[in-house]
Structure formats: structure tokens, C-alpha cells
């Protein structure tokens, strides 16, 4: 008779031990993540000042210099990628939600988008090299934008579709009943109603591509000088971090950290912004 309470006790103890182990295991991985953030801020912030944003890189081995060209370059490369990728993605998203719906073709397109999203970024880089760099004969910011556009398209297509599917049919009917053609209904009623969600998708995609390095290695390539011409090789923040971190110069390591702060801040800001927008949509419903 005595064994019964003993077993109950053992079960209780086992439960407590297990829960404690789970909590410990869950907390351990937060440590490196916390350290990454702390180290970036600690190492990087001390090197950040106005000059760092305004100056060009110093020649190899010399100290000082800044990342003005990489900052401008990232904006140009990502900007062109958005210009290429967003219209294609939104129209494809419209096809999936308004025309394709549950058809076989639409399903194949969705699978293709998933496959495209899973293609390793380095492979995207090879493809952009073959499609743009080789025919042009030289590296260029534009080829980098093509690579990044390929990476953002699947993200924006799927969010656009999801968001437009949430737009109630009664709004489409209201517009059609006023004698508005379907295409105008889509562009002027359906798309504007889902615009906040589509914007969220674009922001998430931009946050992802802004930090991409691998697809730029043999497309945008990098450039020690300032250029605004997208047909020339161009520098970008992630390229600076990679090149400086793997260089033998201590001053460049310092600048790699400082650049990492700038890039992290940009990406976090975009992600937080997209989340705030997403919350707003959820709140409206």
C-alpha cells in the first residue's frame, strides 16, 4: 500500500525536473542570440560617427574612411530590385487570388513560388551572373538588383495573394454592381483594401534582401568608390562587412562591426515596421 504514494511523489518530482530542464534548454539558445546583439552594439557603436557615413573607404592598410558609397549602393541596389520585383509580384498575386484561385495552374504557380523561395541565395547569384553579368561583360549594380528581385518575388507574391483573398467578396460585388469592370475593381477596390498587407509583405521582403551578401558577390561585386550608375560595379553594406571582416587589417575589422550596426539597425527597423503594420491589419478585423 505504501508504494502508491511513493509513485505519486516520483511522478511529481519527475514532472518538476522535466519542466525545469525544458526551461533551461529553452533559455540556453537565447544566450548566443543575446550576445550577438550585445557584441554588435558594443563593438560597433564606438566607431560610428558622422564621418563614417559621409566618407569613402580608405585605401587598404590605412585607417579611417567611411561607408558612404556602400550606404548609397545598398539603397540603389535594393531600390532597383523593388522596382523590378514588386509589380511582377503584385500582378502574379492578383492572378492567384482573383483568377487562378483553386485551379491546377494556380497550384503549380504556388509550388513554383515556394521552390523559388527555397533556392539558396548563392545559386541565385550564379543565375544573375549568367543572365546579366556575362551578356553585359562586367559586374554591375543592376545584376545585383536582378538577383535580389528574384529573392523578393516569392515573398511578395504569397503575401499579396493571402491579403487579397481576405478582402470580402461583398466589396468586389459592390464595385461590379456600379458597372465597374473587373480589372478596375481589382486595382481600385481590392488592391487598395489590401494595401497595408501588401506593404507589410514588401517590407518583410526588403528587410530580407537588404542584408543578402551571397547574391551580390559576383553581381554588384563591390567598389571602393562612389558611383550612382547602376551599370557599374557598386558597393553595398553586406559586401563591406564580408570584405572587411575577412581582411587582415584591424581598422577594417572595426569598421566591419560599425557597418554591422548600421545594417542590423536598418533590418530590425524594417521588420518592426512590418510587424506594426501587420498588427494594424489584425486590429482592424
Amino acid at each position: 500500500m505504501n508504494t502508491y504514494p511513493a509513485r505519486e511523489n516520483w511522478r511529481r518530482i519527475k514532472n518538476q525536473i522535466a519542466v525545469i530542464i525544458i526551461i533551461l534548454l529553452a533559455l540556453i539558445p537565447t544566450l548566443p542570440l543575446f550576445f550577438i546583439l550585445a557584441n554588435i552594439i558594443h563593438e560597433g557603436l564606438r566607431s560610428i560617427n558622422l564621418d563614417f557615413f559621409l566618407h569613402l573607404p580608405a585605401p587598404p592598410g590605412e585607417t579611417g574612411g567611411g561607408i558612404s558609397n556602400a550606404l548609397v549602393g545598398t539603397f540603389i541596389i535594393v531600390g532597383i530590385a523593388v522596382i523590378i520585383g514588386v509589380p511582377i509580384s503584385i500582378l502574379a498575386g492578383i492572378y492567384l487570388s482573383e483568377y487562378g484561385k483553386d485551379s491546377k495552374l494556380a497550384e503549380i504557380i504556388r509550388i513554383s513560388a515556394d521552390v523559388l523561395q527555397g533556392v539558396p541565395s548563392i545559386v541565385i547569384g550564379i543565375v544573375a551572373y549568367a543572365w546579366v553579368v556575362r551578356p553585359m561583360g562586367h559586374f554591375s549594380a543592376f545584376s545585383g538588383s536582378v538577383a535580389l528581385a528574384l529573392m523578393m518575388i516569392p515573398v511578395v507574391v504569397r503575401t499579396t495573394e493571402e491579403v487579397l483573398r481576405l478582402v470580402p467578396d461583398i466589396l468586389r460585388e459592390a464595385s461590379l454592381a456600379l458597372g465597374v469592370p473587373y480589372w478596375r475593381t481589382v486595382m481600385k477596390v481590392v488592391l487598395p483594401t489590401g494595401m497595408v498587407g501588401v506593404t507589410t509583405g514588401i517590407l518583410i521582403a526588403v528587410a530580407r534582401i537588404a542584408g543578402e551578401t551571397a547574391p551580390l558577390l559576383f553581381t554588384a561585386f563591390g567598389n571602393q568608390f562612389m558611383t550612382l550608375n547602376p551599370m557599374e560595379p557598386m558597393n553595398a553594406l553586406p559586401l563591406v562587412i564580408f570584405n572587411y571582416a575577412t581582411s587582415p587589417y584591424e581598422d577594417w575589422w572595426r569598421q566591419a562591426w560599425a557597418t554591422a550596426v548600421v545594417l542590423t539597425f536598418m533590418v530590425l527597423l524594417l521588420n518592426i515596421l512590418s510587424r506594426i503594420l501587420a498588427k494594424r491589419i489584425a486590429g482592424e478585423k
Partner: protein
Amino acid sequence: MKFNLAGQFYDDIFRKISTVMALLIIGLVIGIFITLVIESWPSIKAFGLRFIWTTTWDPVSREFGALPFLVGTLLTSFLALIIATPFALAGAIFLGEIAPPRLANPISFIMELLAGIPSVIYGLWALFYLVPIVRWLEIKFGAPPFGLGMFTASLVLAIMILPYALSVARDVIKLVPQDIKEAAYGLGATRWETILHVIVPYARSGIFAGIVLALGRALGETMAVTMVIGNRSAMPHSIWDLGNTMASVIANEFTEATEDVHLAALVEIGLLLFVITVIVNLIARLIIIRLKVK
């Protein structure tokens, strides 16, 4: 009448344009595949299937075999999975089941933000903070103290894929119906027994999908790995050895490859990587579809 024709006309055009853009997505995937095949053709023709199982990678003698990189990729990815899975699972159970929402929500939020940090920054951090730790470990274990190498790459990969595996698993655990859990508690089960015998079995396939998705990311991850793996294009002999993954060898050698066949061999590695990741992602997708049906 003129006006009404315009309506139909533009409707037609709009439908066609959006259909073409949607078809373009299929075209891109096929285009990527065909491009990789065409660009790697000199290498496919020269080495055939031998490419996959030979270990010599020598631009000078123009002899290329991809086995070291296949091994490098598979080894680092699976090692990263083995390291990350227990933590991801515990984290998912903690955030999905144990922690009150007031605690779980902000933690999940921060986790997801950190998952968005670019991989080059993980690489930077690993290079300056993880490498010294690994070097210290290597001295302890009597391995050559490079600091860099396959093990370091696996560690940084584990850190990077953890948030993905965790958030998928957490979402699935949250989907476990309340009444099933209550039934277990009602029978007098402890929390641990409920987790072990009810929640985890119910969410099993979703957790697995999360792990497969994380594997897909690890296989294709380039920058962080390139920065810490040591870039040695030879067969690794232990996990402490310097090495290269499929992605890192492309990143390292692509712009330096002067010989056509060298470039083609690098593209063929890209082709292999493409095929592997597509298969892995499709498997994850199949599991998720089955999950939704259930």
C-alpha cells in the same frame, strides 16, 4: 457602345498580363534549372557522374570532384540540426505550452527579429567570438587549434536555424486542441506526461516539418559558413578539420575561376545544391499539406 467595348477589352488585357506574370514564376524556376545545366555542361561532359564521388579538386590539373563539398554541406547541416533540435524543441514547448502569453509573446517577437539578422553578421560575430571559443575547445581536445573549421560552421548554423525550427514547432504545438490537453490533465496526468504523451505525439509531423525546413536553410546557407569554415577544398577527416561546403566553395572561387571548366564545375555544384534544396523544401511542403488535411 464604344465605352462598353473598352471595359471588356481592358478586362481581357489585365487578365492576360497578370496571368503572364504568374506564369513567369514557373518560368523563373525552370529558367534557373536550365541555366544551371547549360552553364555546368562543360563539367558534366568532362566528369560525368564521377563528379559526385571523386575527391580531387584541383584547378591546376583541371580535375574536379565535388565529394568534399557534398560531405562538408551534409556534415555541417546535420550536425547543426543535431545541436539545434533539442533546444528548438524545448523552446517550442516552453513558448507554446509552458510560458504565459505575456512572457511568450515578447520572447517570440525578439526571436523572430533575431532570425531576420543577415547571415553575414552572424558570420562576423562567429569569426570574432565563436572562433576563439572553439580554438580553446580544440586545445582541450588536442585537435589542431584552427578555431575555424567544420565544427565552428556547424555551431553558427545551429544558432541561425534555431529560430526557424522553433517558430514552426511552436505554431504546431499551439494548434494542439485544448480539449485533448484537458482530457489528459483530467485523467490526472502531470504537465510533463501531457507534453510527452499527448502534445508532442500530436504535433509530431509539424515539428518534423519545421526541422526539415531548417535543414533546407542550413544546406543553402552561404556567408556565415564561408567566413568560418576555413575554405580548404579537400576531404575533411574530422569535424575539427578545415573544409568547404557546396555554397562556400562557390562563394570563394567563383570570381577567381579563370578556366571555363573550373567555372562550370562550380556551377555544377550550384546545380546539385539547387536540386537538393528543392527536394528538401518539397518534402517539408508535403508534410505541411498533409498536416492541413488532418
